[in-house]
């Protein structure tokens, strides 16, 4: 029997390097940002002035922030309901032997490799109200006046479409790994039992990729909470906050025009707290279930 104390210290050795790097370069700055959230600082102030919970009180009344949080939730839900099934569909299509499938796999992942600037420029032109590719679609949706990105009604959905275009390939790679990991014999056995393609998918593939699906779902949700790049570059949160996300509002108020470092930090802490409140119970429950199993 290994003596307990050595077991414990060994475990810490496993964790220590990661913890050290994380603490020095990520945790510490985050804690400083937390500290900053209790101050009034930025813009024309020479020094930070203590504000206590004042920033948080203001945040509670900040309608734009809560609207942005709602958008984050929508984004997370939509990502799970739209991007992941689509990615699974493509993964299944590309799992079986197919001539030239590496071309497809490269192409679908390409949007992830592209710099955000490329995506921004291409989609600005494609969605342009005066000459874009998407003009017929815009007319159909009654958004031809302002364009799909300029019309408050369609802006969010359009931004989501561009985000999906980018990330489906990413989820496809993860799910492909999962699909490929399912042993072939299971499919053969199912076929022998008389199961058709759909049934095989439901009873063999789906259970087999549960792990990969969980990973995709987790990454999707976490990503949706922090999301900034494409949205800011396409609409900067506009028009009139129709596509505002937590991160874009924090950027606009905290750094860009607002220059309110303290308030921005408070918003970020609030966002984090909300995310933790949602995620932690779910993950801990899962952990407990697995230990029991």
């Amino acid at each position, binding site marked *: 029997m290994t003596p307990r104390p050595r*077991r414990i210290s*060994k*475990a*810490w050795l*496993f*964790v220590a*390097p*990661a913890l050290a*790097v*994380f603490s020095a*370069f*990520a*945790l510490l*700055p*985050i804690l*400083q*940002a937390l500290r900053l959230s209790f101050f009034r600082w930025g813009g024309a102030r020479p020094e930070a002035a203590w504000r206590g919970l004042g920033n948080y009180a203001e945040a509670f009344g900040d309608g734009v922030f809560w609207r942005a949080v709602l958008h984050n939730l929508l984004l997370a839900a939509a990502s799970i309901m739209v991007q992941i099934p689509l990615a699974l569909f493509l993964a299944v*299509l590309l799992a079986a032997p*197919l001539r030239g499938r*590496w*071309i*497809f796999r*490269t*192409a679908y992942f*390409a*949007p992830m*490799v*592209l*710099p*955000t*600037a*490329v995506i921004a*420029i*291409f989609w600005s032109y494609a969605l342009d109200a005066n000459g874009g590719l998407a003009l017929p679609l815009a007319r159909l949706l009654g958004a031809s006046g302002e364009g799909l990105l300029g019309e408050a009604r369609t802006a969010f959905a359009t931004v989501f479409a561009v985000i999906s275009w980018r990330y489906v390939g990413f989820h496809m*790679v993860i799910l*492909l790994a999962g699909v*490929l*990991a399912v042993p072939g014999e299971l499919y053969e056995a199912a076929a022998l039992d008389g199961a058709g393609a759909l049934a095989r998918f439901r009873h063999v593939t789906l259970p087999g990729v549960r*792990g990969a699906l969980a*990973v995709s779902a*987790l*990454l999707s949700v*976490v990503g949706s*909470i*922090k999301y*900034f*790049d494409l949205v800011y570059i396409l609409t900067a949160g506009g028009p009139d906050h129709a596509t505002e996300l937590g*991160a874009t509002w*924090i*950027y606009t108020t*905290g*750094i860009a025009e607002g220059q309110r*470092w303290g308030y*921005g930090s408070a918003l*970020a802490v609030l966002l*984090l707290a909300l*995310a*933790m409140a949602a995620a932690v119970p779910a993950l801990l429950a899962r*952990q407990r279930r*697995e230990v029991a199993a």
Partner: protein
Amino acid sequence: MSPRARFAGVVRYAVLALFFALAAYPVLWMVSTGLKGAREAAGDWWGPPGALQWSNFAEVWKDGGYLAAFLNSLAVSASAVVATVALAAPAGYALARLRFRGSRGVFLLFLAGMMVPVHVTLIPLLRLFDRTGLYDTLAGLAAVYTAFNLPVAVVLFAAFFREVPREVEEAAALDGCGAWGTFRLIALPLARPAVVGVVVLTLVNVWNEFALALVLLRDKQTLPLVVQNLRGEYGGEVHLVAAALAIAVVPPLVVYALAQRHLVRGLTAGAVKG
């Protein structure tokens, strides 16, 4: 092949081709626009180019400072990826398999670290970098990237290692393997899909990262910074912007195309279960 199977095959190709067009079109458009002359690019956005203006690429390459930026991006990305995997795998393993006091706390810590938007950390990080002399160093930037990617990597590895059957580990322990031995010889080889996943995720996060690179570097540049500068410089000269972006895009794509064949091989090789 039965007609039914052939039809299914055709439909399959059609669907795949449709998505191919959606995914690849922007890159093709970028290259095509980069080959147009100034008036052509501004006037006719969607048609193919007439005479191919390769000079656009030459002009943009000269202006760009690409090579240095590309190599810098490569160095930073590679180090961040290697460091992330090297640090996160043991940590994830410990959290999954080695019960120790405070493991839940550490797990929660990493969980919280996953969800912080990067902008609020810009000022504290810049201050830290100034004080420690890490300002404008690639190593410093790589360290920050590693730190920010660790949470997700650790959580992913932990989730993965939890799936490894205990019997295999117990057998190793009976054979006299300590915790590290079990990790190195048994768990890690099985973790190839997780490693691949973390590599891909970290690479994608780091390669295009802009905010931290902008703030923490000055004379050195990574690719996203150069690309942004070129966008600003060329402004309305679409043909040059497109050429600049096409150059930035093509090498990573080529690297990915070559690498992904190995990627998949790695994924399938390590996936022996039961």
